């Protein structure tokens, strides 16, 4: 519609050509050649025809419009060649039509040429005169090209003529006008097509919409669900993968570290790392310092030097190996390449394959010579202390020699007398066998009695190792009292014992504990040597004390002797301190170290009236 308005606007029609081409001045030209009225009339007819074009084309579909445009152009402008290419509003690709005057057969060839031309001149500013060869005759044609549509994007029109004046300004004006009309028509056609299409589509769409929407919703839902599910799975898998990767990295790292660590250990430690086969010979070895001796194929006992000395130790070890048991800290002696003695401590565990078959041992050995040395020194020290204690014990027993001899001589005398009696009876014509039997029974009894005394003494004198074991303190006290009672009696001392029942057992060496008590009792007897006989009273008392840290057994030895001064009190337990003439001064010192080693206490207090009391406290077993 607006196209009609613009074409009706006369001045608008005249100004457009003026602006586009300064040489074109149709009014002047028309006025100057007023005689050519026939031409003017022709031009007016053309213009009116052009105005009618939209009405003519209306209703046609888009595909027919380019053909109609070319027809109009060819007839109005007497063209030899016309070409149009326009975008199909239906969108199926550009529409192309070529028209060659007088030669309809050349349509295809002309199109080909025009296509080439059109392609080469897509520039919208290239609306200028061109020279084309005539597809039919080959003679040159003057051509003009005009872009179609807004900004020329929708297509192109090419018009060509044999006339050398082509295009005249009026022809150019006509051309432009026609094409503008064509654009409008094409545009309308496109709109119509689109409208039809849209109407149809809308109808189809409307019928399918609901189903589609429903399906779509369902699909969407399902899709959503699956996506969520899948996303979740993927995320889980990813997580798992990431974890696994991290894990692998970690274990790889750990393995590497572990390997490195063991390599470091093997290289830096003084330990030997080894593996043996089922026959206990070495299969792998990392040895330090014994390289020549300890080699693959050898066995422990091939280079140990104490196999014959300590058969029992080795027997047990071999038994463990044969039983495929793990072993720890098995120590044996060997000699270094330079001949010096070394102690090797070895630990190993058996290795089995997945089927449980014994493959050998894997383990570590260490040169513990230095620590064994220290242990030996410690052991020697302990031995020396034990030996000292024994010597002191022997000395103490020496003080008892007279009463011990008496204790042994009594049964021996009885045995001698009874044996003589038997001989006399048996020598008689009619032996008194009943009496002989009685005497023999007495002999047996007395020999046991003498034996017991000797055993008691020998136990105290024995070079037995110090063994801490659960022991009954009451029994220890009784034993000592039996031993010492004759001596106490010999000194005219009244001995009283008050032993608490149910004394807790203590951890200790009974011999050493006897020694301590013996020492305390003899000291007490000695302390009363100078006091009046009626005052000589010795009390042995045992009590039970429940303390915060558990039960304690306490033994007290109370005398009524000369006691000790404050100055003496401080030195009582010193070694070589003695108040006895001829005394060694070791008794109390040793006693205290013995009690210390039993985690107990030994101390002395002065009695209110006379004498002293020695206290001995030992932790009871719980």
């Amino acid at each position, binding site marked *: 519609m607006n196209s009609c308005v613009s074409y009706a606007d006369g001045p608008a029609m005249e100004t457009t050509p003026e602006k586009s081409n300064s040489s074109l001045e149709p009014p002047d030209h028309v006025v100057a050649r007023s005689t050519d009225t026939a031409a003017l009339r022709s031009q007016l007819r053309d213009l009116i025809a052009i105005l009618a074009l939209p009405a003519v084309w209306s209703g046609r579909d888009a595909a027919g419009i380019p053909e109609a445009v070319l027809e109009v152009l060819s007839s109005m402008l007497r063209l030899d060649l016309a070409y149009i290419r326009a975008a199909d509003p239906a969108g199926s690709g550009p529409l192309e039509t070529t028209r060659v005057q007088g030669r309809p057969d050349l349509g295809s060839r002309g199109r080909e040429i025009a296509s080439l031309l059109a392609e080469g001149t897509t520039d919208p500013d290239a609306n200028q005169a061109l020279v084309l060869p005539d597809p039919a005759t080959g003679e040159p044609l003057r051509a003009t090209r005009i872009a179609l549509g807004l900004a020329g994007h929708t297509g192109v029109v090419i018009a060509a003529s044999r006339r050398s004046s082509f295009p005249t300004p009026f022809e150019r004006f006509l051309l432009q006008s026609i094409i503008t009309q064509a654009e409008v028509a094409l545009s309308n056609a496109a709109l119509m097509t689109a409208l039809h299409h849209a109407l149809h589509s809308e109808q189809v769409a409307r019928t399918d919409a609901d189903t589609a929407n429903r399906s779509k919703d369902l699909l969407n839902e399902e899709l959503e669900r699956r996506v969520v599910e899948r996303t979740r799975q993927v995320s889980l898998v990813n997580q798992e993968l990431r974890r696994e990767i991290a894990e692998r990295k970690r274990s790889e790292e750990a393995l590497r570290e572990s390997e490195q660590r063991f390599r470091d250990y093997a290289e830096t430690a003084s330990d030997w790392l080894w593996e043996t086969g089922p026959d206990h010979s070495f299969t792998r070895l990392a040895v330090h310092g014994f390289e020549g001796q300890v080699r693959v194929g050898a066995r422990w006992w091939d280079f140990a030097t104490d196999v014959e000395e300590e058969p029992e130790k080795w027997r047990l070890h071999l038994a463990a190996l044969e039983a495929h048991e793990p072993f720890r800290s098995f120590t044996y002696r060997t000699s270094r390449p330079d001949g010096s003695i070394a102690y090797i401590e070895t630990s190993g565990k058996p290795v089995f394959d997945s089927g449980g078959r014994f493959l050998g041992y894997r383990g570590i050995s260490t040169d513990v010579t230095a620590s064994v040395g220290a242990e030996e020194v410690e052991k020697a020290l302990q031995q020396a202390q034990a030996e000292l204690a024994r010597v002191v014990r022997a000395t103490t027993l020496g003080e008892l020699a007279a009463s011990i001899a008496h204790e042994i001589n009594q049964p021996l005398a009885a045995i001698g007398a009874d044996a003589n009696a038997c001989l006399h009876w048996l020598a008689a014509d009619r032996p008194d066998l009943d009496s002989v039997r009685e005497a023999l029974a*007495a002999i047996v009894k007395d020999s046991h009695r003498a034996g017991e005394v000797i055993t008691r003494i020998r136990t105290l004198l024995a070079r037995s190792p110090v063994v801490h074991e659960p022991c009954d303190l009451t029994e220890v006290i009784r034993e000592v009292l039996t031993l010492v009672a004759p001596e106490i009696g010999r000194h005219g001392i009244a001995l009283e014992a008050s032993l608490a029942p149910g004394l807790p057992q203590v951890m200790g060496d009974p011999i050493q504990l006897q020694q301590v008590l013996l020492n305390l009792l003899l000291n007490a007897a000695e302390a009363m040597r100078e006091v009046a006989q009626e005052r000589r009273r010795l009390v042995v008392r045992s009590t039970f004390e429940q303390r915060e840290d558990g039960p304690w057994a306490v033994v007290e030895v109370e005398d009524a002797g000369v006691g000790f001064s404050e100055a003496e009190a401080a030195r009582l337990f010193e070694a070589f301190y003695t108040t006895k003439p001829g005394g060694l001064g070791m008794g109390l010192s040793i006693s205290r170290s013995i009690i210390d080693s039993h985690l107990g206490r030994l101390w002395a207090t002065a009695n209110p009236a006379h004498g002293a009391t020695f206290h001995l406290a030992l932790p009871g077993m719980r």
Partner: protein
Amino acid sequence: MSAEIPIVFVVDDDPSVRDSLRRLMTSVGMAVEVFPTAQAFLNAPRGDAPGCLVLDVRLPGLSGLDLQRELANSSATLPIIFLTGHGDIPMSVQAMKAGAAEFLTKPFRGQELLDAIRHAIDRDRAARTQRRELAELRGRYDTLTPRERDVMAGVVAGLLNKQIAAEFGTTEATVKEQRGQVMLKMRAGSVAELVRSAGRIGIAPHPSGGTPPR
């Protein structure tokens, strides 16, 4: 007199020793009595038979030495065989000084002890005989009149009758008669025998000699 069965007393606090000693004595036919303490021995009635005491020097309560002293103080002397252990040297010395018959160290040999016992019993028997004879002599002497005792002292001193008569201012015949009484009462067959008897009861060989010490 010697027909009396000797008896052995044993005092020992050790029952084994005590009983074995009892069996040993019995096996050789000796009569034996055993006591666990000195006091028990002292408390027991004792016959007059010869015998000996086997005594452990080391006894609870009254010790062996105490018993020895006790016995010495009483008239009942009994030979004592001490049994000792080692280390009893000072006690043993003391015992020997106090007249112990024997001193045996435990363990002793059975035969040694038996020999010691026999010896002690013999000595006891002899001592008893001697004591009895002495008592007899003393008893006889006790029957003498004071004048007869003076005459006896003169005789023992070797004085003649007339010297004795001169000393007492009597006749020689009176002295002679008194001298006969002395010989008779003292059951002396000869002057020598009388002198011996006088010596045993401790009469000083002098007219002025007083009563014998005991």
